[in-house]
C-alpha cells in the first residue's frame, strides 16, 4: 500500500482506462503529512453521514426499547404489558447494530442487518394491526415511519455493497494486456518460431504471403512499393476489400500497415523480437478493425466481431508451420472446413 495523494499525481499521465481502475476507493489508506512517502495510516471514518446517522438512530431507538419499553409501546400503539419483553429483545438488536455501524469503517453487514430488522419490525406492526384492541392510527403512523427508515437503510446498504473494493493500485512495472477502446476490434496474438529474426521479417515483408496463413484473407495483391489490395473471404455475400499501405517498416523489428479508403479501416502491426535463450523469434501480431459508419459498416462490424482471438492465434500457428516446415499441416479432420470425422476424405471432397 502506498499513499493515495502520491498516486493521484502520478496517475494523470496514465491512459483513462488505467485511471478509472484506480478510482472508487473508499475508506482506505491516507498519507500522513510530514511522513515518508511509503508511510500511511488507515483513516478512521469515511462513511457517508446518512449511514453514520442511522447508526446513532439505532442506538437511540434500541436504548428506548430496552429501558422504556412501555413508553415505546404507547407511542406505537400496542398493548404495553403484552409487548414489553419483545420490545426489549428488539432493543438489544438495535443497540448491537447501532454500535457496529458507528464503529466499523465499512459496516456493510450491519447495515443489511438493519434492513432485516426493519422487515421484522414491519411484520410485527402488521400483526399488531390485525390484533383487536390496538390503536390503528398510531400503528399506521409507526408503519410509515419504519417504511421511511427502511428505504434509507436499503439505500445505504446497497451503496456500501456496490462500492468498489479498494484497489491495490497499478504498478508501472507490471505487464497488462491491451484493452479495447471505443468499439474498435483490437486483436492480438503471439507465437515463437524456431527461425532467426531476419528470415521471419523477410517473410512478413511480402504481404502476398499473408493469405497463405491468414484464414480470413482471400488474397493480397501488391499494387505498389508500399501499397497492397486486401480482399477478405466474406461468408455473408459481401465483398469486403481495401487498400493498405505500409506506414512503418523497421527491418527486423516491426511492420505496420493501415488501410486508406475501403469498407473497413484496418490497422495492423507485427513486431519481431529475438527470443531469449536462442529460441528463435517472438512475433506479436496486433490488428484493429474499425468499420465505416452506415448499414454496410454495421454488417461488416458484426463480421469482424465474430473474428475471435483464437482465429488470429490459429493464423499465427499456420504461419509457424509455414516457416518451420514449409507447409500448413493438415489432418483428416481439418483438411476441409466444417465438422468431419477423422477419416480420409474422398477426392471429390478434397477438391471441393
Amino acid at each position: 500500500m502506498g499513499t493515495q495523494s502520491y498516486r493521484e499525481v502520478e496517475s494523470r499521465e496514465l491512459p483513462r482506462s488505467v485511471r478509472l481502475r484506480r478510482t472508487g476507493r473508499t475508506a482506505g489508506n491516507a498519507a500522513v503529512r510530514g511522513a515518508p512517502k511509503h508511510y500511511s495510516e488507515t483513516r478512521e471514518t469515511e462513511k457517508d453521514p446518512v449511514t453514520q446517522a442511522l447508526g446513532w438512530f439505532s442506538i437511540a431507538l434500541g436504548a428506548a426499547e430496552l429501558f422504556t419499553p412501555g413508553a415505546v409501546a404507547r407511542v406505537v400503539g400496542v398493548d404495553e404489558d403484552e409487548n414489553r419483553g419483545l420490545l426489549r429483545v428488539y432493543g438489544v438488536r438495535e443497540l448491537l447494530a447501532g454500535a457496529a455501524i458507528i464503529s466499523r469503517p465499512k459496516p456493510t453487514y450491519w447495515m443489511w442487518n438493519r434492513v432485516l430488522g426493519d422487515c421484522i419490525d414491519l411484520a410485527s406492526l402488521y400483526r399488531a394491526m390485525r390484533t383487536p384492541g390496538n390503536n390503528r392510527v398510531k400503528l399506521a403512523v409507526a408503519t410509515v415511519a419504519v417504511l421511511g427508515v427502511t428505504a434509507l437503510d436499503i439505500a445505504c446498504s446497497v451503496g456500501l455493497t456496490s462500492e468498489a473494493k479498494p484497489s491495490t493500485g497499478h504498478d508501472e512495472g507490471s505487464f497488462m494486456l491491451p484493452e479495447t477502446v471505443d468499439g474498435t476490434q483490437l486483436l492480438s496474438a503471439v507465437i515463437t518460431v524456431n527461425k532467426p529474426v531476419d528470415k521471419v521479417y523477410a517473410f512478413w515483408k511480402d504481404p502476398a504471403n499473408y493469405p497463405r496463413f491468414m484464414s480470413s484473407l482471400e488474397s493480397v495483391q501488391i499494387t505498389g512499393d508500399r501499397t497492397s489490395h486486401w480482399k477478405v473471404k466474406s461468408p455473408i455475400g459481401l465483398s469486403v476489400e481495401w487498400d493498405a499501405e505500409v506506414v512503418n517498416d523497421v527491418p527486423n523489428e516491426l511492420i505496420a500497415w493501415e488501410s486508406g479508403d475501403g469498407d473497413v479501416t484496418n490497422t495492423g502491426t507485427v513486431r519481431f523480437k529475438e527470443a531469449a535463450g536462442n529460441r528463435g523469434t517472438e512475433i506479436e501480431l496486433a490488428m484493429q478493425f474499425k468499420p465505416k459508419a452506415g448499414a454496410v459498416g454495421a454488417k461488416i462490424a458484426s463480421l469482424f466481431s465474430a473474428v475471435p482471438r483464437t482465429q488470429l492465434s490459429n493464423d499465427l500457428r499456420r504461419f509457424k508451420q509455414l516457416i518451420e516446415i514449409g507447409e500448413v499441416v493438415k489432418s483428416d479432420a481439418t483438411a476441409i472446413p466444417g465438422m468431419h470425422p477423422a477419416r480420409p476424405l474422398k477426392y471429390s471432397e478434397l477438391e471441393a
Partner: protein
Amino acid sequence: MRATCWEGAKHVKVEDVPDPKILNEGDAIVRITSTAICGSDLHLFNGFVPTMEHGDILGHEFMGEVVEVGRKVKKVKVGDRVVVPFPIACGACWSCQHDMWSLCENSNPNAWIAEKMMGHSPAGVFGYSHMMGGFAGGQAEYARVPFADVGPLKIPEDLADDKVLFLSDIFPTGYMGAEMCNIKRGDTIAVWGCGPVGQFAIASARLLGAEYIIAIDRFPYRLQMARERAAADVTINYEETNVLEAIKELTGGRGPDACIDAVGLEAHTPGLHGLYDKAKQSMRWESDRISALRQAILSCRNGGTVSVIGVYAGYDDKFPLGSVMNRSLTIKTGQCHVHRYMKPLLEHIQNGDIDPSFVITHKMSLEDAPVGYDIFNQKEDDCLKVVLQA
C-alpha cells in the same frame, strides 16, 4: 479400405472408408501389416476422452509397408518396412529438436482445442480424438503418416512384426516410465498396473538395473506374467490385501525409491473410495479416476520419484499434493517421446535382451476388432494384448 471406427461409447465398427491420400508433401501412405489395440484406446472406447466424433478411425500402434510417398520425402522409400511412432512430430520445431517429440509444436492442427483444455497443446496423435489433431488412426488397412522422414523407423527383414510392433508405443512408453525413475543400483521400484505398458515398465526397470520390483494389479494372470515374463520380484493383488501396508512391509517401512503409475484414468479401487471415484467420473464431475496415482504417491519413499505414464485427460479430484510437497516427491510424466527410444530399443530387441512379443495374448483379423475391444476391455479370456492383422 476397411477401418476400425469409433461409433460412440463401447461401440466400434469395422467400416468401409475412403483410402488415405497424400495431404502434405512430407506424407507417406503405409499398408498396415500389424496393428494393436492399446490400453489407452480403451479410454476412447469407454468414452472418457473428449472431442471424439462418430466415425473417427482408431488406432495408434501400427506398422507396415510404405506404398506411396509425398514429394518432399527423402529417406523413406516405397517398399520400406516401417514401425510408426504414435506421436506425430515435425522434427523442425524447438521441442522436436530438444528430443521432446510428443510435444511437437506443429503437428496438431487442432492445437487451439487442446490449448483451451490444457493451457498449451501437445503433439498430434494418430486416432486419438480431435483435440489431439483429428488424424485417422492405424487400425485399418492403410494409414497416412505425416512427416514420414521424421517418425517411421525402418525395420530389418529378419525381425517379425510381433517383435517390433510395440516400438510404436507401449515398449518405449514403459521404458520411459522406468527411465524417469532415474534408477540406481539397489533401487526398489513399484509398478501400478500389469497391463502391457506395466509389463514393459517392469521389464525396463530390470534392464535399467532395479534390484527389487513390486508389481500391483488385480488379475492373477497379469500378476503371473509380471513375475514370470517381465521379472517382477513380488506382486500384490490389491483386491486381496491393503496395498499401502503391503508395500511398507516389503520395503522395511521406507517405501519404494520410485513408483510408476501405468494405470491412468480408469483406475479401480475396492470399497468406498472406488465407488466415490466411479460416481464422480460417471457424472462428469471429474475427468479421471486417480486412485492408482494416489496410492503411488502415498507409497513412495520420502524424496522419491513418482513416474506417471498412465493416461490422464483432465481435471482431477483429491490429488494428494500435500503428500507430494511435504515429502519432497518428484513427479515426472509425459506422453512418451517415442522417437527418442525407437532405435536404442530396437537394438535391445536385436541383441536379444528382450522379446516384446511376450505380451501378446490374442491375434485376430482386423475384421474382428470389435471382439478384440470387447475382450480386452472386459479382461476376458486372460486378454492382455490384442494384435490385429489385415
